[in-house]
Structures are given as structure tokens and as C-alpha cells.
């Protein structure tokens, strides 16, 4: 059908001789998609976003927006707008003038400016605040102005660089859902840069995980969480346990402590793998509990119990490694103490054997 909203082909960005900020990235982002670039700070996600915005130019490779090659086209000639991390509101202008800036720069005048600015201010629920100076606003309000200022131009793609980073937790969670609603309302492509995996999982249609300039895995939230491509992705997204082992047969892994378990394997028998098992996928039982035949079991000893409020974390020593187990804090769930012998069980589908 139509061209993807953004296509990055073999994009590399070097700063100076040695720093490779972005390393040969290939990525397609569909029209109307909410796409997140997720990674730790310094992984190149912001640089990638800036290359789409035109605030940086790739050293190699090409950036296309709706099929059109961007080359070294300056930011003012690209059909994208950015919500900056620090909001970057013009301090010498009112809220209205901030939001109207893009429209005025593109030659729109008079009542149309008024109408569209007021519409945008309403969309981010700041009605009546137009005359305020941008310096009189709280962090959350500034964030909304920054959003309105970008959306008012009806860009084909909206770029968001950690827009919620400076807000406190409650406000951030509320804004996550609101952003998602706004995205569905306006129906434009959002490319969202964040280091917060929870945020990415909550909001995105698809996530691209980056580390050290490389794009490690691209996929829907669930796929990224449930079947990470490698150790980095598994560890960066949520909590997980790693257990070393060796594939003995397709779908079967011998763990470092000698236990034979079933798992999702993708490599030949004999190859060394790391099993990733999320804490919430494990059950904890009394010793000599009969584990259903379709599940695998691991024997261990409770090393420590940590109270999280909504959950309990048990650190269980299975001989070679300590495995975290999460148990929801519900009434009637038995509690284990330090030193208790226990049996852990999990479904083979929950165990992914990683090779890197």
C-alpha cells in the first residue's frame, strides 16, 4: 500500500573519528503507528530521533519520510515536529504564541491561527491558559504546551524525546495514557524515545530496543517482553533470571545445576545457551509437591524473602545460581522463610533459551 511513515536504511551516525552514536540501523515505522525507541542513556536513540527530525544528518545511510528521501534537508522543511525532552518552550512568548509559532512560520495567518491554536490548546486540556507566560506553568502544563505546539502543525510524524522524563511518577502514568489517547485521536505516527521500559510497554504498538548504537530487536510490546532476542533485551525489559545451560535436544536444556528442563530453543543440541525466566512466571511450592507433567521443576532453598507491598520476592538458591521468584501478595498464599526447601515450577513456554 502506501509507503511507511519513516524508513531508515543502513543509517550510521559518527561524531568525530571514534564515537559511533548510531550503527547501521535499518527500520521501518508504519503510518499511524505508536513506535518506541527504547534503550539506556547513550544508546543512540535520541540521535536516531534527531536524524529523523533533521537536527542531525546521518554520516551514512538514508532517512525517508513517506518514501521521500530526506538527505540533508533542514528541519524546517520536513513534515515532522518534535516534542523536546526539556520542552524547549520559548520563554519570551505566551502559551498562545508558543503554540502558534509553527503555523505563523509556515505562513498561516489570521483567524485560522486562532482557531487551530485554540483547538490544540483544548486538545491538551489547557483551555483558558493561552495568555499565560510559558514560564508560569508547572512541569506537566509545559509538557502539554510542548505537545500542542507540535501537534498544531498536523505533522505527518510526531517525534517525542523522553517527553515525560521530568514529571513525577503519578503524573507520568496519567500522561502516558493521555498521550496514547491523543495519538489515537489525531491518528498520526508517534515515534517515542524513552529509557523507561514500563512506559514503552504501556504505550507502544511496537518497540525497538537499542544498545550502543545498534538496534537489537524490533517487535510488538508482548513479543519483546515474552521472547527477547538476547540477554540485553531480556534484562533491560523487566526483571529476569538467567540460568546457564546446554541444549541436549530440540526443546530440552540441561541447566548448570544438572536439572533437565524443557524450554523454547532455537539452536542445535550441544550449544551453550542462557535460559531466561521471568520471576512472575515461576511458582513456588513445598518440597515433594507433585508438579503437573506439562511443567518443569527446579529444586532449591529460600535464600531471602523481600517484601514489595503488592508482591513478595523470594531469592531461591538452586545450586549454581540464585533465582528470583515473584509471588503476588494475596491472602492465603503460603509464605516461605529463609532456609526453607522449596520446589519451583514453570511452563516451558516461559523459558527462552538465548544464545547471545
Amino acid at each position, binding site marked *: 500500500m502506501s509507503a511507511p511513515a519513516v524508513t531508515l536504511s543502513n543509517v550510521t551516525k559518527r561524531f568525530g573519528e571514534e564515537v559511533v552514536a548510531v550503527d547501521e540501523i535499518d527500520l521501518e515505522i508504519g503510518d499511524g503507528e505508536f513506535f518506541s525507541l527504547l534503550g539506556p542513556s547513550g544508546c543512540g536513540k535520541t540521535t536516531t530521533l534527531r536524524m529523523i527530525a533533521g*537536527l542531525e544528518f546521518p554520516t551514512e545511510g538514508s532517512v525517508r519520510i513517506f518514501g521521500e528521501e530526506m538527505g540533508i534537508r533542514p*528541519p*524546517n*522543511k520536513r513534515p515532522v515536529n518534535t516534542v523536546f525532552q*526539556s520542552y*524547549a518552550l520559548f*520563554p519570551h512568548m505566551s502559551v498562545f504564541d508558543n503554540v502558534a*509559532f509553527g503555523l505563523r512560520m509556515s505562513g498561516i495567518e489570521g483567524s485560522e491561527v486562532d482557531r487551530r491554536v485554540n483547538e490544540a490548546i483544548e486538545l491538551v486540556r489547557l483551555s483558558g491558559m493561552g495568555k499565560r507566560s510559558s514560564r508560569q506553568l508547572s512541569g506537566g502544563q509545559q509538557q502539554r504546551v510542548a505537545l500542542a*505546539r507540535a501537534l498544531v*502543525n498536523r505533522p505527518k510524524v510526531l517525534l517525542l524525546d523522553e517527553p515525560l522524563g521530568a514529571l513525577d511518577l503519578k503524573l507520568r502514568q496519567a500522561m502516558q495514557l493521555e498521550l496514547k489517547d491523543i495519538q489515537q485521536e489525531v491518528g498520526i505516527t508517534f515515534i517515542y524515545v524513552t529509557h523507561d521500559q514500563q512506559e514503552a510497554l504501556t504505550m507502544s504498538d511496537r518497540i525497538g530496543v537499542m544498545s550502543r548504537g545498534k538496534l537489537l530487536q524490533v517487535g510488538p510490546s508482548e513479543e519483546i517482553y515474552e521472547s527477547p532476542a538476547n540477554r540485553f533485551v531480556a534484562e533491560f525489559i523487566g526483571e529476569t533470571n538467567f540460568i546457564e545451560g546446554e541444549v541436549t535436544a530440540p526443546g530440552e536444556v540441561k541447566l548448570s545445576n544438572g536439572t533437565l528442563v524443557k524450554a523454547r530453543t532455537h539452536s542445535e543440541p550441544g550449544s551453550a545457551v542462557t535460559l531466561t525466566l521471568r520471576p512472575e512466571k515461576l511458582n513456588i511450592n513445598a518440597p515433594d509437591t507433585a508438579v503437573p507433567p506439562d511443567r518443569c521443576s527446579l529444586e532449591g532453598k529460600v535464600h531471602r524473602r523481600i517484601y514489595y507491598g503488592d508482591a513478595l520476592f523470594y531469592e531461591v538458591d538452586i545450586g549454581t545460581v540464585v533465582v528470583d521468584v515473584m509471588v503476588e501478595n494475596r491472602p492465603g498464599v503460603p509464605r516461605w522463610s529463609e532456609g526453607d526447601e522449596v520446589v519451583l515450577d514453570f511452563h516451558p513456554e516461559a523459558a527462552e533459551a538465548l544464545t547471545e
Partner: protein
Amino acid sequence: MTQLAEYEKVEVNPELEEKAEKEKARRGLFTALPAYVYLIAFFAIPLVLVFVFSFASRSRTGTPVLADWNLESWARLFDPLVAGLAWRSLWLAVVNTLLCLLIGYPFAYWIATRQRSSTRNLLLVLVLIPFWSNFLVRTYAWRTLLDVDGFVTQFGEATGLWGQLLFTLPAVFIGLLYGYLPFMVLPLFAAIERIDWNLVEAARDLYASGSDAFRRVTLPLSRPGIVAGSILVFIPSLGAYVTPDILGGPNTTLIGEYIVTQFGAARNWPFGAAVSSAILIVMLIATIYYFRSGGRTL
């Protein structure tokens, strides 16, 4: 909950706040006391004396007499000769301020946008180096350069672009521009360096061309520097004495030199005092107006 409300009530108690404010002001006064004493003794009192002398009369030999108070000296300000001098000084100061701004802004911008802070510091030191030697000495150096056998004049004559400059108005401009440019560059640099470059990027992202982004964002945000620099250049330019005296000629007399003459050779202290006071008032009005117009961003 009620306890919290009680607590908040105490916190906004206006009486307590007022007391705290007063206490703060008292402490502030104490630390500023030496400066106050100095300024009152060596600035405020002499200034009042000048103002008082402007209403005094003079004896036949020229000594000022603090009696027979009159407005004669003030009336003489409208004398065409004096008004002409004042007018020349005023436009010269305005033009010099504009020239400094025109030359200083790109330079300050260039320094402020250097990536490495060591480069920026080095460039700033270069701007300040002239201050390490005496202003009078530097002005005499210009005299040598602008004189008949000076480098600048020789170059102008060789290329046919200009003749001798010394004792002409251009020489005074060169001297003033040279002398006051650093006072423009430094505050401009401070203001431009403080600008958040994300704002310029944001403007570019919002369809502003490079020049639009400069006009709409960079320039308005460097306004505090423009205001401060203009004041720092305008005021001493208006009252300039050394530069026009050394580099200018009989046709370039400025109000500053004229005042000196009144206190010296002409022995007319009341009139000198009146001209001084008048300039002071003009500067005060100009400064207040200028600060007001740029006040919000300062």
C-alpha cells in the same frame, strides 16, 4: 488533616511574613553599609553639590559665589552653541552605540558559540587585554597611527581611500569605537551564552528558517545583553572627554570637553555644573526608558 491546615495557616500569617521580610532587609542593609557610606560620601554628596552650584552665580574674577541663586546657567543651555554641541555629542553617542552593537553582536555570538570553553575563555581574555594598559596611553597610540606619518593614514593615502584622519570626526569615531567595543561585547557574550540552544532547534523544527529562528528566538533572548551593552557604551560615549580631546580637532568639540573648559579655562563653574546636571538628567531618562523597554527580559 486539621493539623496540616493549622500548620498552613501559621505559615501564611502575613504579620510573620512581614517581620521576616523586615529582618531580611535589615540584614541586607548591614552587609551593604560600607558600599552605602562610600557611595554617599564620594558620589551622592558631590552630585548634589554639582546640582547646587548650577544655581549659583560667579564673581567678576570667575570664582563661584554661593549666593544670588538664579537660573541663568540653565537658560544658557538653550544657547545655539551649547545646543549644537549637545546635539553633536548625542548623535555621536547614538551612532557609536549602534556601531558597537553592529560589530560587537556577531563577534560576541561567534565567541559564545565556540564549542570548547577553553576557546571561549581565550577569546574573552583577548577582548580584555586592551584594559591591561592605560586608556590614555592607548588613545595616544591611536594618535600615532592616525597622524600624517602614521600607518593608518599612510595606508589610506597609498590606496587613495582616505587622507589624514587625525583631528577629524572619523578619528573620534575610531577612538570611541575602539575604546567602548569591549563594553558591548562582554554583556552580549554573557547573554548569548546563556541562551538554551534547544530553543533554536525547536524553532527550526517548527518551520523557522535559520534567519527566522535568529530573529524570533536568538535575538529576543539576547536582549538583556543588548540593553546592558548599549547602556555601557552610550553613557560614556555621551560624556567622552579623553578621546575627542586627543584625537579630535577644533570642529569636533563634544559636550564633555566643553564642560571641562567651563570648569577650567572659562572659569564658569555654575554653567559647567548646569551642563553636567543636564547631561545627567538626559542619561537618566534614556537609561530608565531603555531599561523599561527591555526590563521584562532583564
